[in-house]
């Protein structure tokens, strides 16, 4: 995965000065404050931060479920106004699949509902997508018969089959056990190797961020503000033992947990 060569220079998704607020019954919570980001074609862009840094809220805003109070989010230079199939979301919860549809129909549904693909073409794409996530055998099964990891794979296949401009993943592997999670991370990476899609990935695991991502946006908590943006394209499961991996991991750890003074090592870089 030697790769800056793969990255196009065209920014397809960007946010400038994005401030997000939402209301709870008693409070007005500011989730993020003046966050900037730029995502290029084929990026594996990770939003990393401790809980309460508004990373999921930011992803929801990119998905169009929430409008920024200040600043704007643009996709292909169009202002994001609401949810749309150009930004397919994969949620953390398993219940995002429609229990009343078989696995195959779950994958077919977005294509037919949005009218982007029809008939035979849609069916072929659905089969291909299921094949890529190794679920061909289960295409006629209902979601309740699948394990958590399999449901997640269906959700990913469903999103991929629609060929969105960006894939938004909200801690998609957080609810999985450690072994399945690792397998899913590897599968996601090998899918990316094949298809070179653009993905935005929210996580609170530093290791996952470094392995899955090609760029990491580190957010500080309460409210979420940009702390750093780091490239990490050269790291994968093969070099977890590498001291550089540990170094980066430690650096991010310090960024996240040392409040107040800027760490010296960041000033150098």
């Amino acid at each position, binding site marked *: 995965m030697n790769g800056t060569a793969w990255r196009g220079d065209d920014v397809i998704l960007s946010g400038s000065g994005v401030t997000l607020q939402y209301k709870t019954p008693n409070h007005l919570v500011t989730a993020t404050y003046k966050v900037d980001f730029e995502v290029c074609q084929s990026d594996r862009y990770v939003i990393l931060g401790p809980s309460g840094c508004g990373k999921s809220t930011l992803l929801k805003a990119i*998905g169009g*479920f929430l409008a920024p109070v200040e600043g704007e989010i643009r996709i292909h230079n169009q202002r994001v106004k*609401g*949810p*749309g*199939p150009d*930004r*397919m*979301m994969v*949620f953390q*919860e398993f*219940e*995002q699949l*429609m*229990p*009343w549809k078989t696995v195959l129909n779950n994958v077919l*549904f*977005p294509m037919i*509902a*949005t009218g982007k693909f029809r008939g035979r073409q849609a069916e072929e794409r659905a089969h291909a997508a299921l094949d890529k996530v190794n679920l061909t055998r289960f295409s006629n099964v*209902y*979601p*309740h*018969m699948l394990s958590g990891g399999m449901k997640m794979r269906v959700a990913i296949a469903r999103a991929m089959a629609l060929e969105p401009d960006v894939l938004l993943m909200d801690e998609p592997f957080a609810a999985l056990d450690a072994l399945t999670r690792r397998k899913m991370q590897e599968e996601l990476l090998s899918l990316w190797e094949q298809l070179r899609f653009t993905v935005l990935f929210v996580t609170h695991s530093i290791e996952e961020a470094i392995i899955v991502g090609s760029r990491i946006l580190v957010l500080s908590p309460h409210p979420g503000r940009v702390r750093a943006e780091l490239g990490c394209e050269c790291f994968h499961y093969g070099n977890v033992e590498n001291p550089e991996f540990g170094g980066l991991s430690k650096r991010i750890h310090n960024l996240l947990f040392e409040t107040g003074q800027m760490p010296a090592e960041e000033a150098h870089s």
Partner: protein
Amino acid sequence: MSTALLHQETLSAARIRPDFERQPIDASAVGDVERRLGLGERLLGNEGFRRTLLLLALALLWEVYARLLGNPLLFPSFTETVQAFWTDLWSGLLVTRVLASLKSLVLGYAIGLALATALTALAVSVRIGSDLLSTLTAMFNPLPAIALLPLALIWFGLGTPSLVFVIVHSVLWAVALNTLTGFRGVPETLRMTGHNLGLKGPRYVALILTPAAFPAILAGLKIGWAFAWRTLIAAELVFGVSSRSGGLGWYIFEARAQLETSRVFAGLLAVILIGLLVESLIFRVIEARTVQRWGMQR
């Protein structure tokens, strides 16, 4: 080695458990790993069979009690009831009565469902609609349909329109309330999945909300059906007399007037049988094909 010894000394009280590896033991003594259950076990596992057994036991109990009582005017036996039932079924009297009842029932049920759909659609699309439905349901759901009969008589006179009116009243609120509850219980993630695809308005309700809330909707349909059936029989008992072809309620009323208690029982049996048939043939099948297959209900 030395560390192991050290470890052993510090944990001298613990048992020494050596590591081992071995081939799995021979399991052929179990026979087939997957074996078909015997006929008896399979029959007992069948709900239909268990329920039939239960019904037979109840019928037997009825027969024995009636024979012991020996007063057919008060409590006819099961066989007498079945006899009366068959006689009237073959003469066609019961069939026309049932058809007359079903006609008003289906009409009222359909109108009730249509109104419930309209009200719930309004309730999910605008907030004031939701307030309206909540208020109306709170007001009218506890109101017994029979209490509206005098009003129905004034407005529509004797006959089918009055029956349909009270049936609509009994169906509407139960179905609307259940559907709205179901819609409100649809998980946020599923809603977002729908919005993500750009689904809005009627398509969103039809493609996402309705199937996701289907267990609650189905429960509403069942309750609505039972309410409608009850209301119909009660209403017919009160004024089925004047409509030229009375329904089942009128059949029961007539039999009572002639002191033919076994026919009263036969009428009640018909009410129960139709209820059972609708439950087991229509609702069971819908349930098995939808919510159970989807794993939303056990």
